[in-house]
């Protein structure tokens, strides 16, 4: 910085103008940022137990597809969304419930029964029947849902 200057009337006014302008910009800018990012950061509604159906429907060693509809609120719109879950058991007592959403980029996988694989058509991702990656670009196994059995009915935790 240069030598100390005396604050003239002109300098003072100029400083005040910059300060007030800065305050107004902050007063506008900070709410604007909150306004833009706010809804993006708000998490979805709470998870709850969703009934899939009777366990008698599930065949041994074959991933069985369950579909259900949930209500999802996005912005000011309430949508009905269909969720698909593959359930697998090898003994009729222990189950795993897998999401059909590919871990690569979010396309939907489907069970190809004669090859015994889950296949994702978007980028040829292949998973085995327990959801582990066999080939292709997916970085990890299929997501699993927490699940419970009550009165021979299967429930998963979702929402």
């Amino acid at each position: 910085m240069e030598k100390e200057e005396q604050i003239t009337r002109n300098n003072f006014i100029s400083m005040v103008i910059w300060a007030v302008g800065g305050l107004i910009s902050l007063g506008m800018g900070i709410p604007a940022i909150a306004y833009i990012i706010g809804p993006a950061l708000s998490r979805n509604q709470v998870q709850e137990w969703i009934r899939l159906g009777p366990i008698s429907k599930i065949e041994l060693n074959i991933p069985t597809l369950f579909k259900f509809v949930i209500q999802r609120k996005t912005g000011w719109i309430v949508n009905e969304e269909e969720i698909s879950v593959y359930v697998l058991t090898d003994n009729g007592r222990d189950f795993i419930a897998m999401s059909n959403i590919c871990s690569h980029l979010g396309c939907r996988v489907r069970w190809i029964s004669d090859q015994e694989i889950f296949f994702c058509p978007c980028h040829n991702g292949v998973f085995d029947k327990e959801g582990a990656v066999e080939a292709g670009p997916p970085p990890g196994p299929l997501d699993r849902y927490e699940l419970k059995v009550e009165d021979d009915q299967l429930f998963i935790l979702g929402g």
Partner: protein
Amino acid sequence: MATKIGNWLDERLAWRQVWTAIFLRKIPKVNWLFTLGSASLFLAVNQIVTGILLTIYYVPTPDHAYDSVQYITTQVPMGWLIRGLHHWGASAMVVMVVLHMLRIIFYGAYKFPREVTWFTGVILLIVTIGFGFTGYLLPWDQKAYWATTVGTRIAGTPPVIGEWILLIIRGGEELSAVTLARFYGVHIWVLPTVLLLITLIHLYLVIRIGISAVPGREE
């Protein structure tokens, strides 16, 4: 450092000359009434900033307009503030622009050589009122709907061409999705473009010609 960058840019852009011409120009001794134009400009900037922010969530269809406005007001963080600033800023701007015009009239500042500044100012007044008229419909609530029903009907009162004007403004016989969409398009594209262009000319003339002094008895 800042001075160095400033100098480097000044050698190429001569920005200090521009800065001086705009902000450090010589003006006659005037009073606070001469700030009304700047106040209008400030409000216009406020409307532009808050208006752009509102378009991030607002949806101009009968299905979604009301709900998206409610969403902005009650759900989005600071949405009430952004909408409030736009809402009250709109009224304030009409008031400020009219006061600015009154000062020009009473001080005779519209006279030679400032006639063109005055003409552009009149256009800006009409544009501001156009903003108010089109923006009023966008919340798509009862007040908006009936105010626009009445407003467009008034526009339809001139003989011979009235019916035609009414149809053009509404985009059909009735107030509908078509009306809402065209009001929105006019509000966020047509009028802002005109406002910006005419404001630039208006400001250029204010700077080029200089502002008038307070009229006095002498001379």
